[in-house]
């Protein structure tokens, strides 16, 4: 396994994933939350590719490609929603969006 062993790649992927989770939980700016989600996608793609190399198969590459595709589509729609929100309310904080109450 080039670089460090497979454990190293799993740990790097886990650290990046939890940084993304921390970003979604702690930050309230919708842009930073979207970026933290992109961080989680990247961590998952790294794990797929590391194990694809481990087993000598190309299936992990195809799934990483799907990760990039879905991440791009989700970023586009998420940013569109942020622009819409900003047009309507001048908000930059997801806590401000609370008109739909239970």
């Amino acid at each position, binding site marked *: 396994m080039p670089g*460090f062993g*497979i454990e190293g790649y799993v*740990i790097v992927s886990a650290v990046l994933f939890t940084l993304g989770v*921390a970003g979604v*939980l702690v930050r309230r*700016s919708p842009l930073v939350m979207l970026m933290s989600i992109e961080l989680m996608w990247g961590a998952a*793609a790294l794990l797929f590719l590391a194990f694809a190399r481990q087993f000598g198969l190309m299936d992990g*590459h195809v799934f990483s490609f799907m990760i990039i595709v879905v991440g791009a589509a989700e970023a586009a729609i998420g940013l569109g929603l942020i622009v819409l929100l900003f047009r309507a309310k001048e908000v930059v904080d997801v*806590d401000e969006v609370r008109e739909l109450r239970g």
Partner: protein
Amino acid sequence: MSAVVIIAAVLAVAGGVGVIASRIPVRSVLALILTLVSLAAMFIAVGAEFIGLVQIIVYAGAVMVLFVFVISLLSARNEPLERPVSLLPGQEKSGAVAAGILAVGLVIAALRHVYPGVLPVHVGYGGVRAFGAALFYEYVFALQLAALLLMVAVVGVVILIARRD
């Protein structure tokens, strides 16, 4: 132990910390670009040359530019910063603690697992030909669904953003 991969891993984690710790969104985007390029270096180290370059071109090149456009669009009126203290009391601390617990759990699970040995890879692994063969022979249905997803995303964004005058 390759020095390039270790440096790339450290830079990726540093970029991740920069994304969640920056108050200014443009700095978060730059940190995320650093993370994505470091991840692409690790992808290439693992043998995924095509995916690494696709990541740089599409993800770091196009999606991050989209983020920068939206930030510049929002900053046209005022700085897109959130409130300094959350409305939910103790949100930052609980979030950090929860993420820390998750990190500890994942690292313990990763280290306790016994991984099988590395299998040999064929010639041309990670290249365009092998990737194209896998994508179009085995996963052609997933490819069609991905294309459908992209079309739905484009149509959805146009419908969302169009002004109803």
